[in-house]
């Protein structure tokens, strides 16, 4: 959507000087009591955020260069090749985890592929569908409020529930879909959630069902905020509805488009609940998020390896996050 993918953090991090627009109280002008208040109000949440979000985020990156089974301590010695793994624990492993993931870990490339398919379906189907819902509802046709409520309903449900609810649609012998298409006999029933060639697509229908409503609500909020005179002006100039949307409305909705891009990418990287509730993310439903989890809470704890997979997710997610932050806080500066 936007080509600005270089990280904008340094530029945006500068404290804005806004003498005219809004006079904030300088911290030097506060008395002792006020300073204590500032320290408490800012300090406690900051500590919480640093300890439980940012420290683990950096920890993932560091751990990804180690070989560790979670038992014993970490040290900085380099792992010795040709040593039994029991003696080679908590050591510096370089990029070996990444190398192994890419070369000998059988689930890695399928998981990457599934995540990419997930993203593609969200970008090409779920998001446009949600936008279409929003545009149609925004035109104020009869019953639009009711449509909005219905299409929004799945957003309220947890993904775990969505997974369970859809199991009745997909059920092999009794399910609605197989019954309707007449494939509910024991020998020719379609195993929608069990067949590794089908189940990813079946689960993606569930994900789309929920995501489209989410995008719709976000987009509706954006559409409502568009200055109506813009639309009138476009109509006066003889633009049709299609042209008005793509040439006038869509460009002024740039901020919301970026929010939706972020939501779309991040949600497809986070995808976990649906596949976990369906079959714990195996047999055709491998995703990077599942692999990260199974390497740390499974029986074989490969902390370093799991972290390396987490870093892959981190690197991909930094692209949309940077674009969003740049867009949001650059405007902050110029405000």
């Amino acid at each position, binding site marked *: 959507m936007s080509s600005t993918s270089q990280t904008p953090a340094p530029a945006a991090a500068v404290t804005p000087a806004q003498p005219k627009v809004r006079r904030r109280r300088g911290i030097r002008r506060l008395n002792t009591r006020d300073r204590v208040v500032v320290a408490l109000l800012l300090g406690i949440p900051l500590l919480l*955020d640093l300890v439980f979000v940012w420290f683990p985020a950096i920890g993932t990156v560091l751990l990804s260069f180690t070989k560790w089974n979670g038992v014993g301590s970490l040290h900085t010695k380099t792992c010795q090749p040709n040593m039994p793994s029991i003696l080679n624990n908590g050591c510096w492993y370089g990029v070996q985890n990444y190398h192994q993931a890419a070369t000998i870990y059988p689930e890695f490339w399928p998981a990457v592929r599934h995540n990419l398919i997930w993203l593609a379906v969200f970008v090409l189907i779920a998001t446009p569908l949600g936008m279409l819902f929003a545009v149609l509802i925004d035109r104020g046709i009869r019953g639009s409020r009711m449509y909005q409520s219905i299409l929004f309903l799945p957003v309220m449900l947890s993904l775990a529930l969505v997974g369970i609810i859809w199991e009745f649609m997909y059920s092999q012998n009794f399910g609605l879909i197989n019954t309707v298409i007449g494939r509910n006999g024991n020998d020719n029933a379609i195993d929608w959630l069990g067949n590794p060639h089908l189940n990813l697509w079946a689960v993606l229908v569930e994900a789309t069902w929920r995501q489209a409503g989410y995008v719709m609500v976000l987009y509706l909020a954006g559409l409502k905020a568009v200055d109506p005179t813009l639309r009138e002006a476009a109509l006066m100039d003889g633009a049709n509805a299609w042209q008005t949307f793509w040439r006038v409305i869509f460009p002024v909705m740039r901020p919301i488009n970026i929010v939706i891009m972020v939501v779309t990418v991040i949600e497809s990287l986070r995808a976990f609940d649906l596949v976990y509730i369906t079959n714990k993310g195996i047999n055709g439903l491998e995703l990077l998020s599942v692999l990260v989890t199974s390497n740390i809470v499974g029986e074989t704890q490969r902390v370093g390896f799991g972290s390396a997979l987490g870093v892959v997710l981190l690197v991909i997610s930094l692209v949309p996050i940077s674009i969003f932050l740049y867009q*949001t806080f650059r405007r902050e500066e110029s405000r």
Partner: protein
Amino acid sequence: MTTDTLSRPIAEPAAGPSGPRKPKPWGQIASQVFLICASILWLLPIAFALYVAVRPYSDTRKYGYVSMPHHITFKNFSDAWTQSDMGHFFWNSVLITVPAVIIVLALASGVAFVLTRVNVKLNVALLILFTAGNLLPQQVIITPLYRIYLKIHLPGFLSGSGLMYNSLFGLVVINVAFQLGFCVFVLSNYMKSIPEEMYEAALVDGAGLWTRFWKLTLPLCRPALAALATLLTTWIYNDFFWAITLMSSGDKRPVTSALANLQGQFVSNQNLIAAAAMIAAVPTLVVYVLLQKQFIAGLSLGSSKG
């Protein structure tokens, strides 16, 4: 998906070159048809699960799920409730969600106030730090977080296990820490819209910083706080990932993640699973019916100012 793509071409003209000044009637009709089809498709899975839930197992076993109802019963609901001890899991959800929502809002409004009204150095940098923290996929931080949770010891009254891991307290903490960023972002945007003159007046009256926060800013933020509370309650109640990874045993899990266990427990009686799922959906459906506007307002606050 097939049905979505099938019905889309019908509506394409509606968004397409159909209506210049006044939308032509057939454009209207196409939109209506499309939205009616979509609405049916959107309600169908929920209605179908509900239909399975209100029928006895013997019925669906014999005739399949897609059949006329021979008996309608609410026994599945009471059986699911008692056999799986759902009341207990609901109570866990309450013990996690209520404190987490209150603490997040309290902490986030403090941060947002300081970042918008006091000229702390690195104001924007801090705002970025909080906002970005909420955007990370949970799996990016779970590996070290899991190790940290195994390392932190808690006194017995906070955690039966003596560890942060497998404790309700631990789940409250991670939900608070993770949602903090979003709330700080939304509330700071909201607080920026409060006119500076109000603070000038308060200063003239000699109000300290705490008074300006507690007596002036927070009451003005009530609409945003209400919207966020609705949103957070739903999100934290719906959380699945933290409870699955940071809790080992089934009996401390909140209801959403306990559903994973129920599936195993009721594997021979799918109707009970459907009933349990419907029961678990009740709190969010209550929010949906009563507070839908608040929920949507919360989402819009998070996106439109972005």
